[in-house]
């Protein structure tokens, strides 16, 4: 029958299938399925219709049915493009990329000369990253159709074996493979076939990987270099020349580029580095030196091998003036680079450049009206010691000429004022000021903000950032400092009011939004944080680079519904992307952009091993379990995150911290991502994730024990014991490591890891013991069960005791917001532990219950029953204790800031909405937590 279909008129088949494709494209899978069935009624053996049916069913979420159709299709050995493509889509969406390889391997057997099938097979190997099979299939393809791209696919596949395959950790293999790749290209050159730009790039890449840089330079200087149409050969040469330490050439090439475009910062750096290398090595041969004297007029005929010559060169470019009508910063900043190199070499920079301080002043006078002036100068502030930085700050502020009683007269002067204030903060000028002094600064900046808004900010577009906004941001930063130094929440709430005012006027200021998000989380106000987060409108990769700022904290705020939504939308990005990411690799081959392949592979790894992704996946599952209303749903749920395929060693911190604007002096030393505190925080987070994942592993193993039958049960029990042992080991390792919560002195630092509260709340002590109980029941060793319950009970008592104390203190304290975040986190953790305990208790019950189907007369062992009843009443007891504690936990909706706000000239309107927001967060969280506790109570009693 199948062969009959093949001879059927293609256009008829096409016409019949078209509606199915249309329904699928529009996402109407149900209609697509109906249409498939209709077509299959007429032509029951139309393979493509079957494949499309499988796809429709898969997209309706019926995975198992889809797989069974696919399995039966395979037996029919499909050999037409449309069917194969539909099946490919199914396997892609099922994450079974290997099956696609098999599919096309079989198709080629039927039709060995089909170029398309060979291409698809090659791409399917790319998706699974089997470089060796890639090489083979590319060569087969080349034999079939001798086209250059196919040949180069094979060469690149060899390179990948060398760098990411068998050669990755074996230098001999690597060498052999790379020299093979080189010879393959040589063959192409010998046949005069090497032609395309990408092919030359591939050749250069192979030479680079073997450190054959002289050869690479020869290629660039020869006829092949001319084929690099779109790249600049000089720019290609620079890194090779630098590595080969050919400083004279580097120097001359850089000079050539700089004369053309004096704003190329990368080239300035190379140039200045080469000057010092030349000076150090003193390698400029005499001949060149002679020429220097003879031909002093022509720039490009002599190298600059002393700082003096470099300085002259810079000065000449400054004199030559502007480019594009803009005053270019290049040569001015090049002077700083020269200075910094002189100092590093231990040479007095004063003779040549004068006092460093004056360089800063001069730069500020030229570019202070540009907001980039601050980040430009920031990198060179390290040239000044602490005292001189303060001196600089004072001089800059004096230079602008705004006193405590005057306001900027022009927008440019305002920008210069802002720039001086930001630099002044960078120079540590705000450190060690008294609270009164800081408060005075806040008042001044808030007034400047309003004056600037009234004067220069009224007629802006919706999308513009207000020119005076940075005053308000600066004021908010200082308010945060104040809250830290006075350990009070008032400044934080004042800052939130200030930022809310700003956002009403400049609704697109992302700096204000990021700051508000941080401040709302600082006081544990999840709803406020969530509202701000929504307005950031994060999309796609931003979910990974910025999502942490919200996802890491929202789960600790007790806003369960909001948390579930947030985690779901984040996971949606990650999982759909995971499916696509292997396709991106095939793009590189398709377009021959071999130079990008490595980058693409690194990126894929970075994204898939995102710590944030893994944390969200684990949190989502735990939240699901915590919220489940019946134990049965647990048996059908997927409890293991990321298909239990977490590569712990490869986990990455992808959080973009640089986006948070900051003028803290710490930014001079390093980028925030490189700070030691951030690295420590990451380690703490990974520890936390590991501990948390063990809860899931243990639960999953327990469920498997219940599901298992007599003979398999022992090995399931062993699995659970293994998990428990690992858990205990890492718990002891982590709990004995002294890990200090990340310091909160900087407003741009992330909030502390959840690890600390996790350890304080005794997750392991309580849940680990309950799993011990579970193991004991499963092997019918009930001797210790009573003791375990007593132990759990005392740990519970301790936990609820802490909760009750903390909440009580919180209620009585004069500042009801200051410690709210950490108290709330403890409460949420306690509720989570109790909910999980209830689940494990019910699992124990199910385990101890005799199997129903056997109708055995054996009833549950009386002592076990007694133990489990005891446990249930212990848990219920704690549930009630926490519930009544929460019942009385209210926040006063009055919080008087009017004195502070009056100083800032802010209306109390903003205050009300911020306070309302916080109170709303609190009431919602308490309500949701109490509802959860009641549901658990019901579940235990049911």
């Amino acid at each position: 029958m199948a062969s009959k279909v093949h001879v059927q008129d293609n256009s008829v088949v096409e016409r019949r299938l078209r509606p199915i494709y249309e329904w699928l494209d529009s996402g109407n899978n149900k209609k697509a399925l109906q249409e498939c069935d209709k077509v299959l009624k007429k032509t029951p053996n139309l393979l493509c219709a079957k494949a499309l049916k499988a796809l429709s069913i898969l997209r309706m979420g019926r995975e198992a049915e889809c797989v069974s159709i696919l399995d039966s299709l395979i037996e029919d050995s499909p050999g037409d493009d449309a069917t194969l493509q539909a099946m490919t889509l199914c396997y892609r969406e099922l994450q079974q990329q290997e099956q696609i390889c098999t599919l096309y391997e079989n198709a080629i057997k039927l039709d060995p000369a089909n170029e398309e099938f060979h291409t698809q097979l090659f791409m399917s190997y790319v998706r699974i990253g089997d470089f060796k099979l890639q090489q083979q299939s590319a060569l087969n393809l080349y034999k079939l159709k001798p086209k250059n791209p196919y040949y180069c696919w094979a060469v690149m596949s060899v390179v990948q074996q060398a760098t990411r395959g068998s050669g990755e950790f074996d230098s001999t293999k690597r060498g052999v493979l790379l020299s093979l790749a080189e010879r393959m290209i040589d063959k192409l050159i010998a046949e005069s076939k090497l032609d395309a730009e990408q092919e030359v790039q591939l050749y250069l890449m192979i030479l680079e990987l073997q450190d054959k840089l002289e050869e690479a330079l020869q290629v660039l200087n020869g006829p092949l270099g001319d084929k690099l149409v779109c790249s600049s050969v000089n720019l290609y040469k620079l890194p090779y020349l630098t590595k080969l330490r050919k400083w004279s050439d580097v120097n001359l090439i850089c000079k050539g580029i700089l004369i053309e475009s004096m704003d190329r910062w990368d080239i300035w750096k190379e140039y200045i580095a080469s000057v010092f290398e030349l000076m150090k090595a003193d390698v400029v041969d005499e001949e060149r030196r002679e020429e220097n004297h003879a031909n002093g007029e022509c720039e490009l005929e002599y190298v600059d091998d002393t700082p003096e010559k470099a300085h002259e060169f810079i000065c000449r470019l400054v004199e030559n003036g502007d480019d594009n009508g803009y005053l270019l910063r290049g040569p001015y900043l090049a002077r700083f680079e020269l200075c910094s190199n002189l100092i590093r070499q231990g040479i007095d920079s004063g003779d040549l450049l004068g006092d460093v301080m004056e360089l800063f002043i001069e730069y500020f006078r030229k570019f202070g009206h540009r907001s980039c002036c601050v980040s430009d100068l920031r990198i060179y502030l390290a040239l000044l010691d602490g005292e001189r930085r303060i001196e600089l700050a004072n001089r800059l502020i004096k230079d602008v000429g705004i006193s405590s009683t005057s306001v900027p007269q022009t927008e440019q002067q305002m920008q210069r004022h802002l720039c001086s204030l930001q630099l002044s903060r960078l120079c540590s000028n705000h450190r060690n000021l008294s609270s009164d002094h800081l408060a005075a600064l806040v008042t001044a900046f808030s007034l400047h903000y309003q004056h600037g808004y009234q004067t220069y900010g009224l007629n802006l577009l919706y999308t513009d950032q207000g020119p005076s906004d940075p005053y308000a941001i600066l004021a908010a930063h200082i308010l945060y400092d104040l809250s830290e130094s006075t350990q009070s929440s008032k400044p934080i709430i004042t800052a939130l009011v200030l930022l809310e005012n700003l956002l009403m006027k400049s609704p697109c200021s992302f700096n204000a939004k990021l700051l508000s998000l941080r401040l709302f989380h600082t006081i544990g106000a999840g709803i406020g944080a969530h509202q701000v987060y929504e307005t950031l409108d994060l999309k796609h990769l931003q979910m990974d680079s910025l999502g942490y700022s919200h996802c890491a904290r929202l789960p600790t705020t007790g806003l369960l519904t909001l948390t579930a939504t947030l985690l779901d939308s984040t996971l949606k990005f990650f999982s759909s992307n995971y499916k696509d990411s292997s396709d991106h690799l095939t793009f590189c081959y398709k377009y021959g952009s071999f130079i990008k392949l490595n980058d693409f592979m690194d990126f894929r790894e970075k994204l898939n091993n995102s710590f944030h992704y893994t944390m969200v996946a684990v949190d989502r599952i735990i939240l699901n379990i915590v919220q489940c209303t019946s134990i049965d749903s647990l048996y059908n749920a997927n409890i293991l995150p990321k298909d239990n395929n977490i590569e712990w060693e490869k986990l990455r911190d992808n959080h973009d911290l640089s986006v948070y604007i900051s003028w803290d002096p710490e930014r001079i030393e390093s980028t925030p991502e490189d700070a030691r505190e951030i690295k420590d925080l990451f380690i703490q987070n990974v520890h936390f994730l590991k501990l948390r994942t063990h809860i899931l592993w243990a639960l999953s193993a327990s469920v498997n024990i219940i599901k298992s039958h007599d003979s398999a049960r022992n090995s399931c029990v062993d699995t659970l014991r293994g998990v428990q042992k690992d858990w205990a080991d890492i718990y002891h390792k982590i709990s004995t490591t002294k890990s200090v919560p990340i310091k909160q002195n900087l407003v741009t630092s992330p909030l502390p890891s959840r690890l600390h509260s996790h350890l304080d709340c005794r997750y392991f002590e309580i849940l680990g013991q309950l799993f011990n109980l579970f193991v004991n029941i499963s092997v019918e060793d009930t001797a210790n069960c009573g003791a375990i319950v007593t132990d759990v009970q005392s740990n519970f008592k301790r936990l609820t005791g802490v909760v009750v104390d903390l909440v009580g203190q919180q209620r009585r304290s004069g500042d009801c917001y200051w410690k709210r975040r950490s108290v709330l986190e403890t409460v949420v953790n306690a509720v989570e532990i109790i909910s999980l305990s209830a689940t494990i208790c019910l699992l124990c019950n199910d385990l101890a219950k005799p199997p129903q189907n056997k109708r055995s007369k054996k009833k549950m062992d009386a002592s076990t029953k007694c133990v489990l009843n005891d446990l249930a009443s212990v848990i219920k007891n704690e549930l009630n204790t926490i519930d009544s504690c929460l019942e009385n936990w209210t926040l006063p909706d009055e919080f008087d800031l009017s004195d502070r706000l009056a100083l800032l000239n802010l209306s109390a309107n903003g205050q009300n909405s911020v306070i309302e927001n916080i109170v709303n967060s609190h009431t919602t969280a308490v309500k949701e937590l109490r509802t959860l506790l009641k549901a658990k109570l019901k579940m235990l009693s049911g």
Partner: protein
Amino acid sequence: MTTLRPFTCNDMYKFNNVNLDPLTETYGLSFYMQYLAHWPEYFQVAESPSGEIMGYIMGKAEGHGENWHGHVTALTVSPEYRRLGVAATLMNFLEDVSEKKRAYFVDLFVRVSNKVAINMYTNLGYIVYRTVLEYYSGDPDEDAYDMRKACSRDVKQKSVIPLKNPVRPEDVE
């Protein structure tokens, strides 16, 4: 003060200071990956001395015969680095690549309301070639100007003779 270099995948982790601005769209990953793989030479980033992304340009080359041209898909500069000539530098680069590819012209689409951008492109030598009606979807839809600048290959400047009548989006390309 610019380091001009090819855009890398990792830059997508660093471009938040540019993309959080409301006028810059953040696309799905595949969009960027397609451009990176297909026209890597046209996807460049301008980096500040302190290592931040100041802006970037995405483009492509397409068309047949005398319609072979460079196209600016996206050009964006972070608020902190505006009015420093960064956009001009990036545009020059793209025009340069288009010259090397022997294109006849470079074109781009811009919202008719985006006066700042239109002004900048005019200063760089671009003319309004035609209006594309309701090119940008939204509430309400907005027209686009298709702006062009001839390359040296178009000796007679045939590509930049403005069309009198506006066109519909479906008639473009």
